[in-house]
């Protein structure tokens, strides 16, 4: 199992992700600087969270034009698996690897808290295939632009193709703010058309130890690695 974590200027969840992947795979993932486009074949590439290039222009816009992106696209065309978390999700969207857009949170607040995610009835993918449909995972979010927006036709298409992987879930009927950002259809994570790329706003690497308040992130990453190894 070979994994790699991409690092851009302004990435800040790269080290947490490296710790999490090491915990799951037993091997330290390689670090890939954003200017590299020549690295060994990997089973999993993770684009971690952060504030790449200071979030200038639009979140992820400048990172999505870095040299490493074409290598990530090659990795995907070879059937490789990619996970984008938070700013990593924004980068994958800006690179047009995933469709739609992530806009300002509805309430204009940077939201940093635990959310409950519900596994959706989606296409086969290496990230969630070990979970039951409707299973809930408690994983924290921390973002300012996580409000998933897509034109109606695209939302419909994503739904029909089973590409909506994770939604923010209401735990009690009284719970008003279960959706932390105003995301369309409560979307928290979507898949690429082959199911091998997942972009998600919540941070699984921040829920890998009981001291974090939970280990559901570890569950998700462990499942992903097991599915890849097969």
């Amino acid at each position, binding site marked *: 199992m070979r994994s790699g974590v991409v690092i851009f200027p302004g990435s800040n969840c790269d080290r947490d992700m490296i710790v999490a992947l090491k915990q799951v795979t037993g091997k330290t993932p390689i670090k890939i600087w954003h200017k590299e486009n020549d690295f060994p074949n990997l089973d999993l590439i993770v684009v971690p969270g952060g504030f790449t290039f200071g979030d200038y*222009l*639009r979140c992820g*816009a400048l990172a999505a*034009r870095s040299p490493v992106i074409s290598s990530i696209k090659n990795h995907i065309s070879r059937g490789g698996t990619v996970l984008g978390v938070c700013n990593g999700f924004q980068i994958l969207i*800006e690179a047009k690897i995933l*469709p*739609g*857009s992530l*806009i*300002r*949170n*509805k*309430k*204009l607040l940077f939201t940093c808290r635990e959310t409950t995610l519900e596994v959706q009835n989606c296409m086969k993918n290496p990230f969630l295939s070990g979970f039951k449909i409707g299973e809930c995972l408690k994983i924290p979010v921390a973002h300012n632009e996580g*409000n998933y*927006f*897509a*034109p109606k036709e695209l939302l419909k298409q994503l739904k029909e193709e089973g590409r909506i992987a994770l939604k923010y879930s209401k735990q009690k009927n009284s719970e008003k703010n279960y959706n932390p950002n*105003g995301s369309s259809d409560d979307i928290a994570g979507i898949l690429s058309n082959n199911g091998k790329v997942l972009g998600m706003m919540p941070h699984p690497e921040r829920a890998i130890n009981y001291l974090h308040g939970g280990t559901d992130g570890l569950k998700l990453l462990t499942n992903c690695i097991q599915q890849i190894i097969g």
Partner: protein
Amino acid sequence: MKVIVNVSLKEGVLDPEGQAIKSSLNNLGFEHCSDVRTGKQIILNLDQNSEDEVLTQAKKMCEELLVNTVIENYEINILKD
């Protein structure tokens, strides 16, 4: 040649910043202000002399980087001295 690119959010795309500004304006007594939409302006200096060429280049820049066409519209204007 100086080129001004105005980027605005498409209709129907939520603009929470615009809404916050609107409510602040209403609080200041500008109660006739019924909607506010925000955007951004990008000013480019292009070392080219032909207007056509400048427009083509600016459009390409918008499509490739400056604008997210899923949520934004843009308008290119050449600034004449």
